[in-house]
């Protein structure tokens, strides 16, 4: 087989990889939906299915309960709760998918934020019998806050409302009303029945009035992040390679991932924080020299001039620098047990850079159920609010809305080293 022929198990076209998130609770049929996607796309293997069938029979069920596929750890089964985000994988032959499955309960905002942080698309489940609930608004708000470009509202359990077009259209209408107030634009609606398989992978025979794509068709055609807006080049330096061997005596390679935008040999670049400018001499990936590198590629940059660069520095294009900030305002999701209060000192980790920080003020807490602001005070676990930080060292930031990589940071407790918060630069 020559290297140019498609790999077996894949078709000629490879549409890359899409990461998506499913939001909803067990009651909405979320686990059943994931089970259905895996089952109908033939991603569940026989022994996994046999285990599920055994367990289903033990519980007195007639058919395999597909929700058991997403059943988690023994520690969770003992407590009857879902602790954590679980990642699952399937492939259609043209595209690989990573599902981040987040538990839906109110107290698990932090799990949803975690799962959403790497997702290109979110599926928000709505029970057709119940319509838009507080939970629906909460999930939509978080998905939007965390910058997921595409939302899909899956109106499930259509079988329990007689596959009614009116019910579907009513829910669509009421969702539109509040989504508009949040500024959500790209949203699609699909009526489906996960339990019977209608409109998930197969169209089924019950929703003839619906002419749109099935859920899987929508996933197959959704664009992955980074492919729409023109983004600025951002290259946080992870590691500096100086082999100092006879063969590579003068080699200085700056290793990292293109977080956004693209770079080509010959481009004028600026190094932060020094501000020194130079040009790109070469872009390497092992023994290949690439003419250019686009976003999400891990490469090694060689520069024309000798510039003092270390881990934590950022290489950008000379004419489009980010903001160098010693004070940042951000939306923070608080992840720790104890509350966040003004005056607290902690560590901010942003791209490959870390700095100590002081919580200067907490402007407001966002009530994510009522979607309104509550002024001042503190943030408890799972709260989201607006926080101002003073930084010991400058960070090179873009607004999160423009750049998810250089707008995001995590907060670390200096004493325990735990990750205690997630921030998005306003």
């Amino acid at each position: 087989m020559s290297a140019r022929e498609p790999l077996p198990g894949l078709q000629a076209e490879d549409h890359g990889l899409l990461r998506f998130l499913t939001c909803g609770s067990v009651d909405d049929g979320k686990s059943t939906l994931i089970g259905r996607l895996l089952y109908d796309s033939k991603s569940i293997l026989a022994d996994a299915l046999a285990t599920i069938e055994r367990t289903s029979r033990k519980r007195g069920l007639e058919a395999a309960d597909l929700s058991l596929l997403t059943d988690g750890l023994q520690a969770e089964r003992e407590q009857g709760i879902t602790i954590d985000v679980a990642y699952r994988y399937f492939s259609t032959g043209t595209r690989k998918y990573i599902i981040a499955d987040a538990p839906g309960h109110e107290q698990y905002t932090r799990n949803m934020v975690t799962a959403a942080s790497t997702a290109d698309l979110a599926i928000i489940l709505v029970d057709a019998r119940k319509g838009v609930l507080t939970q629906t608004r909460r999930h939509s708000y978080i998905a939007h806050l965390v910058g997921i470009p595409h939302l899909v509202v899956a109106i499930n359990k259509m079988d329990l409302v007689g596959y009614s077009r009116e019910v579907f259209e009513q829910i669509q209408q009421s969702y539109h009303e509040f989504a508009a107030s949040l500024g959500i634009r790209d949203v699609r609606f699909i009526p489906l029945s996960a339990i019977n398989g209608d409109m998930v992978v197969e169209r089924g025979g019950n929703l003839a009035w619906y002419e749109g794509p099935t859920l899987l068709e929508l996933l197959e055609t959704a664009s992955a992040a980074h492919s729409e807006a023109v983004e600025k080049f951002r290259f946080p330096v992870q590691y500096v390679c100086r082999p100092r061997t006879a063969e590579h005596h003068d080699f200085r390679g700056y290793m990292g991932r293109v977080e956004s935008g693209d770079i080509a040999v010959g481009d004028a670049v600026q190094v932060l924080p020094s501000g020194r400018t130079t040009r790109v001499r070469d872009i390497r990936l092992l023994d290949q020299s690439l003419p250019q590198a686009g976003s999400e590629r891990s490469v090694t940059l060689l520069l024309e001039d000798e510039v003092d660069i270390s881990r934590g520095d950022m290489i950008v294009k000379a004419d489009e620098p980010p903001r160098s900030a010693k004070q940042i305002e951000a939306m923070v999701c608080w992840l720790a047990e104890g509350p966040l209060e003004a005056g607290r000192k902690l560590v901010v980790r942003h791209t490959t850079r870390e700095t100590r920080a002081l919580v200067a003020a907490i402007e407001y807490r966002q009530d994510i159920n009522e979607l309104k602001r509550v002024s001042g005070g503190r943030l408890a676990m799972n709260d989201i609010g607006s926080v101002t930080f003073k930084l010991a060292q400058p960070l090179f930031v873009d607004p999160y809305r423009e750049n998810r990589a250089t707008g995001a940071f995590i907060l670390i407790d200096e004493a325990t080293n735990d990750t205690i918060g997630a921030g998005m630069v306003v």
Partner: protein
Amino acid sequence: MTDALLQERRRAAAPALDHLDWLEAEAIHILREVAGQCSNPVLLFSGGKDSVCLLRLAEKAFRPGRFPFLLLHVDTGHNYPEVTAFRDKRAAELGERLIVRSVEDSMRRGTVVLKSPGESRNKHQSVTLLEAIAEFGFDACIGGARRDEEKARAKERVFSFRDDFGQWDPKNQRPELWSLYNARIHPGENIRAFPISNWTELDVWQYIAREGLELPPIYFAHTRPVVRRNGALVPVTLLTPPLSGERIEEVSVRFRTVGDITCTAPVESVAATVEQIIVETAETTITERGATRLDDQISEASMEQRKTEGYF
């Protein structure tokens, strides 16, 4: 030409990442984060297919420099000789230093005590691994575990935190957002980093094909004496003799995972090339561990149990 038009044109010229490119770039990023954040990491290399991919990714992450970590194999003493020979050859080709620490040494020290002489040594690797971590003062271990392997792994972090006792506590893991990994630890604690968390078995084989990676020969179809036991093919070896009444057959088989002889079973196969294996993997109806790991069949939670005891 306007700037916008120029940008547009360049965007069209920059090839989109296919799924293997994306997975590779993510894994390289993770390896470099380990090197950037940890002071004394080690990469676990067994000679198995997942760790063969890790070495290729490490080359892409750090060449022309040396790897910023040693290679470590925790040897149960019950590995197929073809695999340990391959392990040593691969490390030598790369010019990187390989350390081997043996479960048999832990048995001699008395830190590993088998319940019976025939007991599988697989789970006891945890003890030897923790001893090696203490001996060298490693603050991070890079492993080839994947989330699709097993459901206790589906919730594993890319940077997984282990306490002073090497224990994994699923209830006490750090939230992991974006690709901002937190490897800060206190002395005695440890990070396990998994660069190919998001890869499936099929991705691994496709990557092996794309990169033209060499593997130990037992991954490819060969004829071997086996007996059929509880639905699995058990290879007939000195360590795994046939039980009375079992019939020895010569069968064309290959291994989907290679580990301790006493708990790794082959599958029936005539796939002799990577391409044929990819076709089989795409069409298989049995999960990787379900078919081949005798140790995971014991109970639904056995991997979870081993991980809480310090297993990688």
